[in-house]
């Protein structure tokens, strides 16, 4: 895979070179030099228009890349109108052109450091592709050829330049609301067990009362003394519980209130008589 990748451009270049051999622009004495600002050795590599450098050159934050070449028209040194070094970010295809300073005899130089590069290129993950474009007016064919790759080295101590993507109208990410979880109940077995345990206290209470001697033996006596009052009084207590039950299941407050008033009045009026009878039994020492 790698082999074909490296062969394909070489073949293309070969073909291009053959085509250009007829008449057209080209360059000679090409070199790219990386000079560090601090004292250090400058790395210098020769470049040619027929095959790009196999290894990318790396450009540090304080380094300067210097490209120099001699532009030639049909083998003669000459000044072209267009002599650019074009750096391309391979992922987005974004390009930045740098015009070369050309002399009459075709000698051309360009110097690039980090501050000349647009921020998108500084943040590139892959090495930038550098190509040389030499062309001018007239019939001579122009040259547009890749020459080398530049790897942008970033300094770990310096924060990377801030870059905010410009706003573009387009579709936006989908948003789905995250609902709050539904309220949960404990397992039904546990609810059932404790529900039954609560119900079981009622028989226990009644059995306890009976064991202590509780009874309803005076019922006939009470009914005999004041039948209507006792029936109404106890009935109204039952009715009140029924009203509460209806309120729980279906009635609303405004249906409940008049009924409670009626039942309550019945309780009060019948209660005086019925409880008076209970008192008379107490006074008679029968309780």
């Amino acid at each position: 895979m790698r082999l074909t990748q490296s062969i394909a451009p070489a073949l293309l270049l070969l073909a291009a070179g053959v085509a250009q051999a007829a008449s057209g622009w080209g360059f000679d004495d090409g070199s790219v030099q990386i000079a560090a600002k601090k004292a250090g050795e400058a790395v210098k590599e020769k470049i040619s228009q027929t095959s790009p450098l196999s290894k990318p050159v790396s450009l540090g934050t304080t380094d300067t890349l210097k490209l120099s070449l001699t532009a030639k028209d049909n083998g003669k040194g000459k000044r072209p109108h267009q002599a650019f070094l074009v750096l391309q970010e391979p992922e987005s295809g974004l390009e930045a052109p740098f015009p070369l300073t050309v002399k009459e005899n075709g000698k051309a130089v360009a110097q690039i450091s980090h501050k000349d590069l647009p921020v998108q290129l500084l943040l590139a993950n892959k090495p930038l592709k550098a190509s040389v474009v030499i062309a001018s007016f007239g019939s001579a064919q122009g040259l547009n050829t890749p020459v080398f790759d530049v790897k942008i080295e970033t300094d770990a101590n310096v924060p990377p330049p801030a870059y905010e993507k410009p706003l573009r109208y387009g579709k936006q990410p989908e948003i789905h609301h995250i609902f709050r979880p539904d309220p949960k109940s404990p397992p039904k077995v546990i609810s059932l067990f404790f529900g039954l345990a609560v119900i079981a206290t009622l028989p226990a209470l009644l059995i306890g009362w009976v064991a202590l001697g509780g009874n309803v033996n005076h019922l006939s006596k009470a009914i005999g003394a004041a039948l209507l009052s006792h029936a109404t009084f106890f009935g109204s207590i039952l009715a009140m519980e029924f009203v509460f039950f209806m309120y729980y299941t279906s009635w609303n407050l405004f249906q409940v209130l008049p009924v409670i008033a009626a039942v309550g009045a019945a309780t009060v009026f019948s209660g005086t008589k019925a409880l008076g009878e209970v008192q008379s039994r107490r006074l008679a020492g029968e309780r």
Partner: protein
Amino acid sequence: MRSLFSFLAFLSAAVVSALSTSGNRLLVVLEDVAEKENYSKFLGDLEGRGFELSFENPKSESLALFHLGERTYDHIIFFPTKAKGLGPNLTPNILVDFMNAKGNVLVTLSSGVATPNSLVSLLSELDIQLPADRTGLVVDHFNYDASTAAETHDVLLLPPPGPVRPDVKNFFGAGAGKDEVLAFPRGVGAALGSSELLTPVLRAPRTAYSYNPKEQAEVVDDLFGAGEQLALVSAFQARNSARFTLVGSAEMLQDKWFDAEASKVGGKKAAKTFNREFAKRVSGWTFNEIGVLRVNWIEHHLDEAVAVNESNPSIYRIKNDVKYTISLSEYAWTSWAPLTLPADDVLQLEFSMLSPFHRLPLHLDAAHSSATESAYSTSFKLPDQHGIFNFKVNYKRPFLSNIEEKNTVSVRHMAHDEWPRSFVISGAWPWIAGIGVTVAGWLAFCALWMYSAPVGGKRVESKKTQ
């Protein structure tokens, strides 16, 4: 006879006014009326599409874009003028007011003629930069017309433009023949700012560059722009959908480049130019003949099994299932057609209170679509948050007029009788049992207290009284 004539005139006026969605009064700003002849095909095409052309000199005193606060023209074309300024009736302020009043503007430049100050200020207002000396020339030594510019290379031959992005419809280059080329003779390239309202229609080829022919004839020392950063034709659509187009070369609209033949350098065959169709599309887009969207209707309703069959209610409850449908049409030259989205694009509905809670794609609803409209709908559950919410469709795309539709509804919380009953909740069973036991125990206690007879005979009263 006279009535018949006026009837015909009325009929043609009715047909004519139907063609652009925003009126047909077109102002053509020309310095020299003789220049008109060079653009006769382009202007004839515009007239054929129903525009009423008025020609004015920029310095003319009778020229006024507004009368009593109303626009007097719907659209303006500027052809290159030699004058440095455009006179007091076409100041950048008035032009911006014109666009604020939804007027559309098409500006053409030419490299031979310096751009008037008024237009340069208007362009910089729109974040479009022109070369410094108000003139520049785009050349490309690799893609030029060998028959007319073999030496100067200033007639660029470009393939018709493709879509700007995969999710944007290709209005300008679609349907062009494979060997058709677009000629861009002696034009000015512009650099576009990063505004989202600006879109390049036609970019320069990778090897093209712009230079100043007067000062940089020998060597390009200070480069204004090169390659695809140069926009040859660019479009701007304001937030109110007013449109502005900058055509870098007025010459490409001239008769000699309409249906002409050009020969690409190195190419063997002469290629036909695409300029006439391109000019039609660019002017048609600018003057609201294509890419105009219309909302026909919006409907939302409760989408539940026991739903009340009411359309667009003003109140919903949290967690209701709701269906939203919007019907849209797109204007295409002479009639409204259903809006079809590009493959990668979606129409999105936001359900938002301050910020969106839901942002969902709307899908084509074939049952409610017809030959002139297409309906898009989606069903979803309202969030579990009460408040004032908006159904919002915010569809802004390059080259399409903006759609921002907001329908406000209240979302109320659960009423007290809409919760599940306590006997349905298993966790409440012990508590319900407790209430039942208390009631039964109370009744039993009442009976016992009133009717219980003492056990073991009479109590010993003396002990208590002591």
